[in-house]
């Protein structure tokens, strides 16, 4: 195996309480495109962070060999020095600098600290030619589309004399033609002996360009498939990705589903900055009394965008469509009106959007419904303390006092505070966006129990989750979203991980 360029042996990486990678081995041969697939949270990004030195040597167990040499990277510059370049999903370009300036950022063509602009610009033109981008080196990044920016990132990697290129979801934000172009480029690089690791959720792309596919699941390597010998079907890959038993991770519940209480029709939303980009297209969603409706899909499928646009247009521009509550059209054009109309949205990012961290638990719980505890604009503090204590007991929030700062609670307890806030606003339709992200198994179970209780009280719940087992475990009905569209709907009784995954992954709409 002399043509192995990269070998990772028995990599184990632990975060407090979680084993993110468990004894993973992974190798790439020279001049191949190696795809890395797996569900969200399977450990793909963690593995690449170990490889590129973002998690430095010593914070993980195992060995990395690159071109036969053992590597102990302390940071990302060391891994780049040997020719290992990672391009992240979120582009790392500086918007108000030119292409040439970005290309050599941290790698400036300079003598004694003085930049040689002539060399920089002529070299930039050369690299741009190689990636097939016809732009002036002086163009500012902010004036280019995402597709072109992606190409600049790759040119930047070339400038670092890349030998192994790692692309994390490179086509997630690209349209068809740009994606096509990018994949062509990878094939070209292969000809020149540059290997690539491609992390992608789009299995059609993977099938198109990959020479081999490694599947990760729950932080372990499941298998490596060789695509050169025989054709691998998408179904085969999906089976490898989800083949896991669902144990008793969810509390049992019996659903009593009533009439439709909430509905949105023909919902269209545009991106707030790139105003010609549509983030929701003709979405129709209904919620019944006592029902838990799942919104499944990959990150970036437009679920959060949809939810926030429904919640008083908290996201997006040029929003069109109608919303109905109990069959009557309602005005949800501001957050205040949405709350008044019985809608609540518990955010996926509790620290940035959900909590005022520097304030007390008590203040956070009552923030969305101060009217309830005040009379003529004056807050009745003892009453506030009583109701918040009730929520603390009901949701089992572990805090030294309701006057403890939200900052000092654990993730699960912070999530319960966010939930309490919205329960106190007594909504009829509760949108929960990734309510169990980043919290431990025990707390997850408690959150599921709360969801069940709310449903049994007759509320309608929309649950956004990237974890398929969770969606399957607690929802009554499931919508699948991709690219801002609802591409599938099914009752949970008919759903399986394979079936949902198929809707998520397949580029064509499945009709059924």
């Amino acid at each position, binding site marked *: 195996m002399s043509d192995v360029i990269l070998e990772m042996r028995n990599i184990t990486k632990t975060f407090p309480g979680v084993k993110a990678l468990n004894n993973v081995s992974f190798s790439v041969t020279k001049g191949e495109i190696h795809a890395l697939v797996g569900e969200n949270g399977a450990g793909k990004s963690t593995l690449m962070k170990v490889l590129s030195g973002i998690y430095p040597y010593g914070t993980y167990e195992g060995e990395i060999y690159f071109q036969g040499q053992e590597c102990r990277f302390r940071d990302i510059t060391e891994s780049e020095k040997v020719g290992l370049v990672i391009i992240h999903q979120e582009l790392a370009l500086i918007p108000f600098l030119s292409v040439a300036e970005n290309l050599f950022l941290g790698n400036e063509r300079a003598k004694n600290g003085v930049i040689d602009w002539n060399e920089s610009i002529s070299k930039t033109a050369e690299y741009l030619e190689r990636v097939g981008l016809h732009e002036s080196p002086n163009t500012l990044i902010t004036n280019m589309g995402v597709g072109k920016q992606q190409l600049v990132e790759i040119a930047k990697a070339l400038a670092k004399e890349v030998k192994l290129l790692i692309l994390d979801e490179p086509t997630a934000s690209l349209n068809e033609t740009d994606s096509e172009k990018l994949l062509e480029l990878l094939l070209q690089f292969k000809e020149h002996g540059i290997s690539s690791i491609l992390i992608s959720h789009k299995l059609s792309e993977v099938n198109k360009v990959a020479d081999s596919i490694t599947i990760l699941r729950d932080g372990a390597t499941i298998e490596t498939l060789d695509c050169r010998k025989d054709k691998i079907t998408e179904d085969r890959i999906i089976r490898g990705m989800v083949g896991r038993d669902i144990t008793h991770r969810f509390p049992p519940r019996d659903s009593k589903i009533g009439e439709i209480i909430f509905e949105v029709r023909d919902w269209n939303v545009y991106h707030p900055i790139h105003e010609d980009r549509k983030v929701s297209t003709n979405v129709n969603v209904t919620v019944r009394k006592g029902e838990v409706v799942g919104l499944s899909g990959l990150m970036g499928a437009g679920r959060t965008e949809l939810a926030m646009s429904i*919640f*008083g247009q*908290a996201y997006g521009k040029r929003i069109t469509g109608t919303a109905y509550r109990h069959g009557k059209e309602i005005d949800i054009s*501001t*957050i*205040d009106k*949405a*709350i008044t109309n019985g809608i609540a*949205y518990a*955010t996926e990012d509790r620290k*940035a*959007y*959900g*909590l*005022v*961290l*520097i*304030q007390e638990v008590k*203040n956070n719980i*009552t*923030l*969305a419904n*101060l*009217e309830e505890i*005040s009379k003529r*604009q*004056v*807050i009745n*503090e*003892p*009453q506030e*303390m*009583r109701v918040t204590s009730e929520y603390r007991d009901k949701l089992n929030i572990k805090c030294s006092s309701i006057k403890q700062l939200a900052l000092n609670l654990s993730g699960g307890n912070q999530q319960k505070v966010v939930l309490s*806030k919205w329960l106190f*606003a007594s909504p009829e339709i509760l949108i929960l966006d990734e309510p169990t992200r980043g919290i431990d198994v025990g707390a997850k179970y408690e959150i599921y129990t709360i969801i069940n209780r709310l449903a049994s009280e007759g509320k309608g719940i929309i649950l956004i989750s990237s974890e398929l087992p969770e969606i399957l475990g607690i929802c009554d009905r499931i919508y699948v979203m991709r690219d801002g569209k609802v591409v599938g709907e099914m009752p949970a009784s008919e759903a399986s991980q394979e079936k949902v995954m198929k809707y998520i992954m397949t580029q064509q709409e499945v009709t059924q």
Partner: protein
Amino acid sequence: MKIPTTFNEAASGTAFRKTLGDLFRNNVREYGMLIALIAVMVFFQFQTNGVLMKPVNITNLVLQNSYVIVMAMGMLLIIITGGIDLSVGSVVAVIGALAGVLIVRYDFNWVLVVGICLLLGALIGAFHGYFVAYQKIPAFIVTLAGMLIFRGLTIALLRGESVGPFPRGFQNISSGFIPDFFHYEGLHITTILIGVLLSILIVWLDVRARRNQRKYGFEVVPFFFFVAKNIGIIAVVMGFSYLMASYKGLPNVLVLLFALISFFSFITSSSVIGRRIYAMGGNEKAARLSGVNTPRLLFYTFINMGVLASTAGLIVAARLNSATPNAGDGMELDVIAACFIGGASPMGGVGKVIGALVGAFLIGVLNNGMSILGVGIDWQKVVKGIVLLLAVLFDVYNKNKSA
């Protein structure tokens, strides 16, 4: 049933100790600044051979700092939202100039002019607030522009010269005293009576709050501490009334200050709007997603600031008995410093009225004490700068220790 009882007893025992400890730990900032203020006062009291605490000087001190305190109430709210207002010094000047021109040059009735000025203050605040809240331009830039604009307008209005003097009634806004209904040689009885009434009111409110907390079954401060605190408060209030009464009684300005301080303490601690301002400063996005109309709230805080700045402008004009082109110059810095010394955070979300008040008094006592001692304006600035830095350093130190 035996085990739970013992548990409860143990719990209440720790609760008691925790409450006292918490009380100090949670209020290190306020107590720290209060102790600093008292220390500075004691220092100057000795250095000036007792001049500092003389009734006439105390009256002066209050009058000299009244406008800083008035504006600190508004500035505090803006700082809590995470903003700043640099224009207040210029607004003080332009309001004074308008009052001067209308009253002295055009012979308007001064009461009418006060109304016009307050209205104009609100408009100026709305002007700043519009750009900050709805056009999303940083408050620093908007109010820097306002600082230049209103200083320029002041000079234009006054044509570069001072305008005065004002009629007696207008001057009384800042140099008058409340009338005495009893005539007793050497002591202003009305003032003493007000002090007594105020003490009773404070104690009554505190007793009621304590009873209310008990009713809902919450921890209260230990009884001993409760009594000690109230005796302390009464002593301070009565001592102060006596000091005032032995000169000319309560200055009108002081009555206004009491009203404003009580009002804003109430707004920040107990009102819905106050709670929302803190939430907005602590995390604007979370507040907005909780249904708080954050732009409108921000707009209101600037209108409030405008009204308070124009109130200060009237006080300054009345006190100087003339409108001058450079009135209020640099005043914004004293006001902002008072808020930060008082524990407000430049990041927003943190700050208390009582803190800003202590901060304003600390600056006032430093100004006054050093002036009595004959320290030049040069060194006064140096000392004030160092005090500001030390106060914020103290904050940072506390925060790191608790984290």
